[in-house]
């Protein structure tokens, strides 16, 4: 697991107040929404804020979100390619 993957899991647990969850309980390819972690629409907005705050990425097309926030793997991949910090 890369440092970015672990960092993302930590940030998600902290930002989304998933207090009953540990880093090692989130699989890299697990769906973040729906049947996986069960995140909701407000969590999606928090993830958009997280991308901008921590990695300087501003999502201009909301439709991108569905693909980017599919899993930790897809988030990490998108961040690697687009981060400005």
């Amino acid at each position, binding site marked *: 697991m890369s440092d970015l993957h672990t960092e993302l899991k930590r940030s998600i647990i902290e930002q989304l107040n998933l207090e009953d*969850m540990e880093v090692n309980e989130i699989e890299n390819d697990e769906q973040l929404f729906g049947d996986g972690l069960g995140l909701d629409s407000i*969590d999606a907005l*928090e993830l958009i804020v997280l991308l901008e705050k921590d990695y300087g990425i501003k999502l201009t097309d909301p439709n991108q979100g569905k693909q980017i926030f599919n899993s930790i793997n897809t988030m990490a991949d998108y961040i690697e390619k687009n981060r400005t910090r």
Partner: protein
Amino acid sequence: MSEVLYIKNSVLIRDAKVYQNGRLYYEDTKSPDISIFLKNLYKSEKIRYSKYFKMDDLSKLGFIGTEILFGGNIENKETALVFGNAASCLETDRYYSETMEEFPSPSLFVYTLPNIMLGEISIRHQLRSENIFFISEKFDSSLFLEYSKSLFNQGKTDNVLCGWVDLQNNDYDVFLWEIARSGKTYLNEEELKNIYLPTHE
């Protein structure tokens, strides 16, 4: 003529203590911080409801008080919710305004209305009933009494959960009580004050 109503059960939460029907139910005086107190109380109740951790402290107070009052299940899905407080959701408003200086938090914004607490309770117990949230300077027993009575008299409900859930500067005052057509304690202002006042200074 209005019918005779009863206070069926009550819960008080103050100073890291929980009283159920006048008896000490839970105490955690080692946790002066409300967030830690609410987390420990949740664990002690063995509730499994991960959305609890996403709520603001005001909603957590109303939510967990309701869990204790009803033993985790409001059976009567027509139970109306009549709530109120003095400080609205000022604590959360403050936290939210702090985030506005950089990145406004969507999850905090959701809780910048005090009646969101009623939504959380309704979702948890699948209630689609009447609900209202009053803001008044201090606990006003007659306000709760008259409004609840009118719901019964108009045939809008046959069970009411009332709640005074106030939070200001880490200081919380929670009084929840269930009004029904049966019970041991007559519903009147005097009885409400008797239950509310003893541990309240």
